[in-house]
């Protein structure tokens, strides 16, 4: 596995798990009717993802046997296709987030919908990159 493959796997896993936990908790709290300062929770989530990814990338870089760690021409091709898929998902997500306003969502919840769109688009980008990498292996 190349550095970029491991990096994409780490990004996808950490974002899906940590942001997934955040959104599940947000929905649960909303259902119960108690909101425990969601801005602090979102800040904590962003911080947790950053810390996990920084530490994970240091470990991956330290254990990688590959002498060339940058993205090469083949991986740039995968990345271009993955970014294109992520971009369309982000546009769709942004439009969906705006539409929540017409369904009676308050400002903060529309903001969370935008965050969700960004997370889904990024997860899709990393996922497509992994699939293309895996199929070409």
């Amino acid at each position: 596995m190349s550095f970029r493959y491991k990096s994409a796997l780490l990004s996808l896993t950490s974002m899906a798990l940590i942001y997934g936990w955040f959104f599940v908790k947000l929905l649960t709290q909303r259902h119960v009717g108690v909101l425990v300062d969601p801005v602090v929770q979102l800040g904590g989530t962003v911080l947790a993802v950053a810390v996990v990814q920084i530490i994970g990338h240091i470990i991956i870089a330290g254990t990688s046997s590959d002498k060339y760690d940058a993205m090469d021409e083949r991986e740039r091709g995968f990345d271009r296709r993955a970014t294109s898929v992520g971009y369309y998902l982000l546009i769709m997500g942004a439009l969906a987030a705006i539409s929540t306003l017409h369904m009676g969502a308050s400002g903060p919840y529309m903001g969370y919908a935008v965050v969700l769109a960004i997370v889904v688009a990024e997860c899709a980008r990393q996922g497509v990159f992994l699939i293309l990498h895996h199929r070409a292996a």
Partner: protein
Amino acid sequence: MFPIANNVRLEREARGLTQSELGAAIGLTRQTVAAIEQRRYSPSLEAAFRIARLFGLSVDDLFRWEE
């Protein structure tokens, strides 16, 4: 399988280089070098010239069209 066949593996092994060392010398990952050798990926013209130059050969010596 891509239609461009090559002698990269033969020339690399003749020079005692590993896939990782060849990749590092021309700016490719080990996985991409392996993919080129197994005809699962056709390198860009620039990469083909880099490999040929490293081996002291012409691109024609290294790559050929084979359907």
